[in-house]
Structure formats: structure tokens, C-alpha cells
């Protein structure tokens, strides 16, 4: 029903566009000068068709269920039911009206279900009537306005402005909402676990929190030595560091090669090939690290008499580095290519060789962009989850030995949230606290990146 109505309104919109434009042509044919191009007249009419429909639809969606519920429950208001019971009753009659009710059907519920159905159908038909009459009224009003050749361009432009503004507002509000949910859950977490224990504790063992029976009272002391985040922060930065050790040199050098040395033909094939690396899902990198690189490193280590864990930070970090190479390579390639040719010419004309030109002129000029691409790579390394979960294990060891296994913030969030979770439980809230810290770290990185870029910009432009 709603779908039909919606389609009909869309058709009405198109029709009013058509009539608006036609009206404009009629006005034009009387040798009068139009105030805007004919299609603006059409858009104007279509907008006047869409706005009332949209407003009424949203009002209906917001208020219809509440009003229906009030009307149904008003029958029982004097019979001494509790609120909870009333709610249950209402849900039961709703289910019955849809034919999904399996329990015992009392006359009460049956009556309400019937009433519910009739109320809904009244609501539906009145919606149709109200929407259509509103559309007709507003389109008629708008048609009258364009008939007198009043302005249409400005309202249409304003409407577009408003639509775009709403879209960006939605994006911003979502972000703000997510951040606030993070903040509140994190605050709840720190009500149970002292901030000090979280930031400076060296023992991360959330499994301990899993054994709590939820019927028991919450006893904060049992969590001491459970949520010490130092090992996983250390693990996160350590693995990211290994990844960047792989990604920065290789990515940067291949970027420089592609931008400055590679012939057009090589570049034509090599660049897409490198960018394919960026298209491989991280899960694939994950099992590549866990099943190929990890065991390989272990064997290699054993043959050299080293003790290597099958799930080592080195395997995870190395593969993560490979994953990040295309970002750094592709971005720095773009940045280097965008250095103006006249700087290169100036340097070559002084008798500088290619490598001198790159080292002394192009690299410094491209530095802000290169730093930006590296920091972007670091953000990705810190936020990467799958590879670590699969290749570096879940035990949060505090270690700086790349041959041992260690864990990261993201991997621990996975550990905590896999399986049953209860809201309001410290172990779930721990995930929010970790998410919050991850967010703060990435935020700081981004701010630093922006600062660096800006500083160099000011200096060189």
C-alpha cells in the first residue's frame, strides 16, 4: 500500500515537473521574458509536490504507532492493569492481527487485535487522503505562482542547498553519535575499572571476566589485574612499527621509481599491478600470514636455531607492511608526479642528475604529501584487525621480541565481542574503552599529519 502510494507520488512529481515546464513554455510563447530557464519552473513544481508528501510521511511514521497504541489501551485504562501488562497486551494483539500469535487467545486480545486492524486501515486511508490533498493544494498554489511568472530559480537553488546541507548534517551527526556512545560506555567502564589500572596495568586477561556469572553482584576487586592495557598498546605499536619498517622503504622507493624512472609503458602496467595489492581483502592477507609466512618464519628460525612462535609479531607485521605498500607507493607516486615540471627542469638545467634532482628538489617539495601518506599508512596499520587476529595470536604478551606472539587493540576487541555479550558488563565495556583509545590515537595521528603538512605548505608556497 505504502509502496503504491509512494510510486504514485513520484509519478505526480514527474507530472508536475512536466506541467511546470510546459507552463513556462506557454508563458514564453506569449513573448514574455521568463524569470528562469523553463526546467526551473518544472523543478519548482516538483519540489512543491515532494515537500508536503515528505513532511506528512515522516509525521505519520513518528506518530501513527503511538496514537494507535493509545487508542487501543484506552479501553483497558480503568481496569487496573500495570504498565508492563498493558504493553504485553498490546504486543500480543499486534502479533495476533498479523497472524503470528501462538499463545492462548483471550476475547480481550481478539477484540484489541480487531480494533488494531481497523485503526490501521483508517490510518492508512486517511494518510492517502491527506497526502494527496496536501500535494494537490501545494502544487496548485505553486502553479498559480509560476503562472504569474514569479521567481523560481532562487527557491530551487535554496532547496538544493538545504538538501545538501541535510546530507552533510546526517554524516556529522552519525559521527558525533558514535563518538558519544564510545564516550559514555567508556565512562561506565572506568567506573568499575580504575583508569590508572587500565593505562598502566601490564596484565591483560579479559578471559577472567568471562567466567563471572551474571547473577552475581559486580565486585570490582575481582577485575584487578584483568584490564591492564599496556601489553596490547605495546603490541599494537610494535606490530605497526614492524609493518612500517616494511612498507615505508619499499613503498617510497617504488613510488619514486614509478614517478621518476619508469617509462610510460612500465608505469602503465606496474601501477595497476601494485594497486591490485590494495584490492586484496585483508582476510586473505590474514591467512596468507597465518598459513604461509608464519610457518615459513618458524621453519627458517628453527633451522637457524632460533625459537620462533608460529604466530609471531614478525609474520603479522611483515604481511601488514605488504598490505600497506600500495598506499604509500601510490600516494607518494601521485605527490611526486604533481611536483611541477619546471622545478625538475630548473634542476636538470643546472646539470643535476636524476638522483640529485630527486634527493634535493623533488623529495623536499613532495615531503608534506609523503609524510601524509606515511601517517595514513600508520593509521591503517594501527586499525588493522584481521591479519593480527589470524597471524599473531590473541594472547596479550608484553614483549619486544618480534619472534614471539603478541596482540593488538583491535584483535582484543574481536576477542571480547565474539560470542555472547551483555551490555553493561565490564568485559563488553572494555571493548568500548579500547575503541575509544584507538580512536584517540588515530585522531592524534591525523592532527599531527595535518600540522606537518600545513607547516611545510606555509614554508614552500
Amino acid at each position, binding site marked *: 500500500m505504502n509502496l503504491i502510494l509512494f510510486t504514485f507520488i513520484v509519478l505526480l512529481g514527474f507530472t508536475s515537473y512536466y506541467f511546470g515546464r510546459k507552463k513556462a513554455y506557454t508563458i514564453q510563447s506569449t513573448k514574455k521574458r521568463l524569470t528562469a530557464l523553463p526546467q526551473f519552473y518544472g523543478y519548482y513544481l516538483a519540489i512543491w509536490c515532494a515537500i508536503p508528501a515528505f513532511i506528512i510521511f515522516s509525521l505519520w511514521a513518528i506518530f501513527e504507532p503511538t496514537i494507535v497504541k493509545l487508542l487501543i489501551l484506552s479501553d483497558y485504562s480503568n481496569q487496573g492493569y500495570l504498565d508492563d501488562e498493558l504493553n504485553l497486551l498490546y504486543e500480543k494483539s499486534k502479533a495476533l492481527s498479523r497472524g503470528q500469535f501462538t499463545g492462548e487467545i483471550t476475547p480481550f486480545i481478539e477484540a484489541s487485535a480487531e480494533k488494531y486492524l481497523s485503526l490501521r486501515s483508517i490510518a492508512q486511508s486517511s494518510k492517502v487522503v491527506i497526502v494527496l490533498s496536501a500535494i494537490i493544494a501545494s502544487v496548485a498554489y505553486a502553479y498559480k505562482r509560476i503562472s504569474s511568472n514569479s521567481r523560481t530559480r532562487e527557491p530551487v537553488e535554496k532547496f538544493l542547498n538545504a538538501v545538501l546541507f541535510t546530507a552533510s548534517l546526517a554524516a556529522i551527526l552519525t559521527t558525533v553519535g558514535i563518538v558519544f556512545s564510545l564516550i559514555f560506555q567508556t565512562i561506565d567502564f572506568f567506573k568499575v575499572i580504575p583508569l590508572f589500572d587500565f593505562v598502566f596495568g601490564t596484565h591483560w586477561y579479559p578471559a577472567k571476566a568471562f567466567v563471572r556469572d551474571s547473577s552475581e553482584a559486580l565486585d570490582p576487586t575481582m577485575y584487578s589485574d584483568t584490564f591492564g592495557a599496556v601489553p596490547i598498546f605495546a603490541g599494537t605499536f610494535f606490530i605497526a612499527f614492524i609493518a612500517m619498517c616494511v612498507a615505508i622503504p619499499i613503498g617510497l622507493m617504488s613510488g619514486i621509481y614509478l614517478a621518476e624512472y619508469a617509462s610510460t609503458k612500465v608505469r602503465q602496467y606496474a601501477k595497476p599491478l601494485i594497486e591490485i595489492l590494495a584490492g586484496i581483502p585483508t582476510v586473505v592477507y590474514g591467512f596468507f600470514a597465518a598459513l604461509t609466512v608464519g610457518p615459513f618464519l618458524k621453519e627458517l628460525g628453527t633451522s637457524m636455531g632460533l625459537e620462533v612462535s608460529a604466530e609471531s609479531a614478525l609474520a603479522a607485521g611483515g604481511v601488514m607492511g605488504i598490505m600497506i605498500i600500495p598506499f604509500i607507493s601510490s600516494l607518494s607516486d601521485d605527490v611526486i608526479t604533481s611536483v611541477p615540471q619546471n622545478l625538475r627542469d630548473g634542476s636538470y638545467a643546472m646539470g*643535476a642528475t636524476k638522483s640529485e634532482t630527486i634527493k634535493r628538489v623533488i623529495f623536499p617539495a613532495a615531503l608534506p604529501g609523503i609524510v601524509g601518506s606515511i601517517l595514513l599508512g600508520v593509521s591503517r596499520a594501527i586499525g588493522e584487525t584481521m591479519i593480527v587476529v589470524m597471524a599473531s595470536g590473541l594472547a596479550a604478551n608484553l614483549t619486544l621480541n618480534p619472534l614471539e606472539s603478541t596482540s593488538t587493540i583491535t584483535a582484543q576487541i574481536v576477542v571480547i565481542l565474539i560470542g555472547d555479550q551483555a551490555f553493561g558488563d565490564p568485559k563488553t565495556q572494555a571493548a568500548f574503552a579500547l575503541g575509544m583509545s584507538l580512536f584517540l590515537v588515530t585522531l592524534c595521528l591525523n592532527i599531527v599529519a595535518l600540522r606537518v603538512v600545513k607547516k611545510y605548505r606555509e*614554508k614552500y608556497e
Partner: protein
Amino acid sequence: MRKNGVKMIKIKAKDVDVFYGKKQALFNISLDIEENQVTALIGPSGCGKSTFLRCLNRMNDVIDICSVKGEILINDFNINDKSCDVVRLREKIGMVFQKPNPFPKTLYENVSYGPTIHGMAQSKQEMDEIVETSLKKAALWEEVKDRLHEPGTGLSGGQQQRLCIARAISVRPEVILMDEPCSALDPIATAQIEELIDELKKEHTIIIVTHSMAQAARVSQNTGFFHLGQLIEHGSTDKIFKNPDNKKTQDYITGRFG
């Protein structure tokens, strides 16, 4: 400069052809450039004068699809020969571009760039001297001596162009190529550069590509007129401007086409 009344020829181009891919941009150019004189290359846009200029320090090497045929003798040495060391060549032949292109570095680093890559200074003191003399010769020293360590990109357009000239002369080149050096500048900055060119010709041979015939008449002693990839006429500036042999030259000079 004349020695015993004989003009000294610095650069001798013989039958130079230039191709961009399959398209021929220069046809059979033969031109002698006199030492310590200013030679202006004039002609309508796209006539190949900049292409010819870029042949003289092999800047066309940078363009993949560009190939140069023929001989260009500088001090009787063919720079198109395989044995020619481009790094040494460009040390001897400096270039100033149409748009000022200072490096995104400090003023000091801009001027010391060439001497550094050619290993011309043994000490910081020597380098300071080179930077100072180059800036003085480029008539920029007085304006910038207190801010040598600020970025070169912070200067005005005319100052930037003089900085580029200082950069070019820092390695004491024998020849300076100028590719429309004033086209991005205002009249006052242009006048300063022209004055500078006059001064520089005492020590350097200068070849300047210009769109402004007034400029060619003001600064040059010799002029070559290019049209559609061919060198139509060349000779002393006086002659080209007052009494050209070729009708096309006459038409161009008098503004009848171009």
C-alpha cells in the same frame, strides 16, 4: 666581443632537425652565435625558437619522444656526440625559464645548488662568497642579504626571476639561455632584468627567446627570426629590424602577422 676585428663564434649549429615523435619541429637550422653578445630568437608562438634553445643544453633529452639530429658545436665540440657529458655541458650552459622556478628551499640553498652538485666550493666560506657574488651579479644582493635563509618562493616575481638568474650564474657558465624570461613579469621587473642582461653579456654569451620585439631590439646585438620551424633570417639586430632581406621577417617585425 671581437678579437682583432674578427667575431668570435661561441656556438655553431649545423643542420639541426628536431622531431617530436613523428612530427618535425625544426627544419635544418644552421645558426652561429657570437661570443659575449646577446642573440635574440624571435618568431610567432610554436615556431620552434624555444625548442632550438633547449637543444643547446640538451634539455630536450628530458622529453622522451623528442629526438635531435645535426651538429651543435660549442667551443668546436659537438654536444650531440655520445662522448658529451650532459652534466658538464649544463654546468657550462645555464638556463633561465619563462616562469620563475626557484626551488622550494631557502634563497641561499637556491644559489648554492649548482656549486654544491658540481663540487665547486671546498668550504662554507667559499660557498658564502659564491652565493654573494652571484646574487650581486644578479642585482639581488641588496634586497635579500638579510633574509638569505628564508624560502626563495617568498620573493616577488621579478625577484624570483633574478634569483633564478643568480642560480644560473653561480656555476660561472659560459652561455646563458633565457626562455622568455620576462613574460611573467611586470614592466619594472622587466626593465631590471633587461639591464641585468646587458651587464651579464660582458662575461657570458646570452641567447634569449622573446615574444616582445621591443625587447629584442633593446637587449640584443643579433637576432634570428623563426617561422614554422625554420630559421627565416638571422643577422645583426639593426639589420633585421631596419632592413630585413626576407619579406616574412619584414611582415612579422612590422606586426602584419604573428
